[in-house]
């Protein structure tokens, strides 16, 4: 029960597909409280990430994750580029040289990535950002690890926690990013970054939930 290079490739491919399918939804969410480019930017970035992975050989999970991060940093732009780029770069550093990750290894990598996102974006919980989906997902992974859960079960629990965190952004007033300029008018809208983060973890659960 582990995450290997083949699964990382499948996960990134699945996420790129998911982002394309949800492009219009992400644009709609971002138009409500941002500038409407999140779906378009993530689609462009994930397309580049898939191309980069196709051009990257090897079984080093960390190297693949770093390649995804570099593609996102150079192709997404906006705030999402550095933030998602940092997520994958830090995950890659944590997994550097590893050919497979067990649940603890996956949780370590994701936690390192999320810590990187927080350091770069300086968001706190309940600022109505992607952090609100990512932090609960890490906590759920750690709890599952403590329960001795299988990797697949743990991933499904982390995706579920991310979904709840995403939905919990709806009543929040944004305090970071462009949505914060709206003040109280940001209340009642689901955060687009939390939404794309939930989709990322859901894609992981669906791709290597049975690994």
């Amino acid at each position: 029960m582990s995450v290997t290079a083949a699964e990382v490739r499948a996960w990134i491919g699945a996420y790129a597909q998911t982002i394309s399918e949800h492009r219009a939804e992400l644009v709609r969410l971002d138009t409500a409280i941002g500038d409407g480019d999140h779906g378009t930017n993530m689609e462009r970035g994930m397309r580049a990430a898939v191309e980069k992975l196709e051009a990257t050989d090897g079984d080093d999970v960390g190297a693949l994750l770093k390649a995804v991060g570099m593609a996102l940093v150079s192709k997404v732009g906006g705030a999402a580029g550095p933030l998602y780029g940092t997520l994958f770069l830090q995950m890659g550093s944590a997994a550097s040289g590893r050919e497979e990750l067990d649940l603890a290894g996956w949780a370590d990598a994701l936690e390192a990535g999320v810590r990187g996102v927080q350091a770069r974006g300086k968001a706190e919980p309940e600022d109505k950002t992607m952090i609100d989906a990512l932090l609960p997902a890490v906590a759920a992974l750690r709890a599952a690890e403590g329960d001795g859960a299988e990797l697949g079960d743990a991933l499904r629990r982390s995706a579920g926690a991310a979904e709840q965190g995403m939905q919990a952004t709806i009543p929040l007033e944004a305090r970071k990013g462009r949505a914060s300029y709206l003040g109280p008018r940001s209340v009642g809208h689901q955060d687009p970054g939390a939404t794309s983060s939930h989709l990322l973890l859901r894609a992981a659960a669906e791709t290597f939930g049975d690994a």
Partner: protein
Amino acid sequence: MKKLINDPDAVVREALEGIEAAHGDTLRVIHDPAVIVRADAPVQGKVGIISGGGSGHEPMHGGFVGRGMLDAACPGEVFTSPTPDQMLEATKAVDGGAGVLHIVKNYTGDVLNFEMAADLAGGEDIQVEAVVTNDDVAVQDSLYTAGRRGVGITVIAEKLCGAAAEEGQSLADVAELCRKVNAQGRSMGMALTPCITPGSGEPSFELGDDEMEIGIGIHGEPGRYREQLAPASDIVDRMATAIVEDLPYESGDRVLALVNGMGGTPLIELYIVYRELDRFLQGRGIGIERRLVGNYITSLEMAGCSITLLKLDDDLVRLWDAPVDTPALRWG
């Protein structure tokens, strides 16, 4: 969506090819990653100045590349921050050995990408200083937001810092000047219509025929509040009051005034705005000593305007009057 384009996905690249074709005598365009750079860059011994941001604000920033202003500009996708690899490429292209100033508008994406770029430039042994502009008084509570946005003062800072760099001032001095200009400048914007990004094809917000949006940014994002449309004199009074009371600008102050169109407002209306602003400031004993009226920092085809004031001193007037030779700003 009615736009003079070929392909929504090719808007930025095709516009850059147009800029290259039109201004190839003074500019060079690098296409991957996208950078507009002075043809004679790097200028040895001169501080390099770069800026960048989403496209859709033309002429900012690419139209301000040239002698006496920016050495390079990084155009992102429409309303999307450029990426660190563009900024690094620009930084390397303009470094003449005296260091490079990054002028960054305070938008989360711009700030994060420029931070990553500065980290990368440090690895290449290029001295970089970054100054973040944040002159938008429409954002009131900076403790619980991403902070005030960088808007009109950015154009003025690029001109003044460009002049200082041409004079041979050091990186530390040019950066200090940029911070001073930002600290003495304030802006506010309003919209009569939303705009449509080519990527989304939809208006960035809905606005009734009789409504206006006060306190907008420059990325089609909605403003702070929405009101019934009013005469220009009332609108200018509201905007100018917010600006003047924020710094505050006081009787006896000399200012530079930028009356800026958002892209879809004709000059005839911008001059009415200037008339009202001039009267308002005279009433408060504030004298406009230099001015700029036109479309300089736009939001695609949005109708509306922004007002920026900068408190002047003799030093700033001299730098403003110094020669500048760019596609969008040229004198001396």
